[in-house]
């Protein structure tokens, strides 16, 4: 008689164990899914971070380029005073800045897939190039 109770008890404990086991497996599966999600999030964050670093590098390059353009130092060591030039020759400076704006707009067009013109392709002199994105706009230009 005692043996039967013992077996019944064992059976009920086994059922409880199986239920617990199923719950644990369910928990493990959820943890696995969470882990995968975390890995995906980490990849996305790393990619976004890399993109930010790239953008930052490009901005720094642009900044250096602008700095060199507006604060260029001549052979005598004198720094260009763009403000003074703009006061003395406003029309000329305006014309130069407008030209640069047109060149920048053209850079965007090229970046969006616009084909290069013959003039752009054949530009080999500094006075012929698009100074805003020379490597993209003037593949045949070899700089100093």
């Amino acid at each position, binding site marked *: 008689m005692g043996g039967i109770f013992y077996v019944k008890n064992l059976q009920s404990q086994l059922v409880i164990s199986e239920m617990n086991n199923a719950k644990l497996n369910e928990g493990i599966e959820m943890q696995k899914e969470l882990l995968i999600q975390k890995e995906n999030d980490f990849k996305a964050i790393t990619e976004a971070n890399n993109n930010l670093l790239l953008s930052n590098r490009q901005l720094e390059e642009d900044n250096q380029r602008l700095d060199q353009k507006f604060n260029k130092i001549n052979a005598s060591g004198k720094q260009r005073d763009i403000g003074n030039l703009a006061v003395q*020759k406003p029309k000329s400076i305006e014309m130069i800045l407008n030209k640069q704006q047109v060149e920048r707009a053209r850079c965007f067009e090229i970046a969006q897939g616009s084909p290069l013109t013959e003039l752009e392709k054949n530009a080999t002199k500094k006075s012929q190039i698009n100074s805003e994105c020379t490597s993209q706009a003037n593949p045949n230009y070899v700089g100093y």
Partner: protein
Amino acid sequence: MKEIIDILEKHFGTDTPITPESHMIDDLNGDDFDVVDVVCQIEEALGITIPEEETMGLGTVQELITVVSAHVES
């Protein structure tokens, strides 16, 4: 002429010989701002004023000399 070449040499350096045929952007590695800068320096040195319309698009040293000379002589 000599004064103009002196100013150009001080501005662009003497690594590349400056001749009347030299192009300020292509040969002397300048840019559009350099051309304006050089014109201002010449105006100051010679005590002259050149209308902006005459200096826009200047390329070679000879073109610069021609424009400046017209105002020095007049």
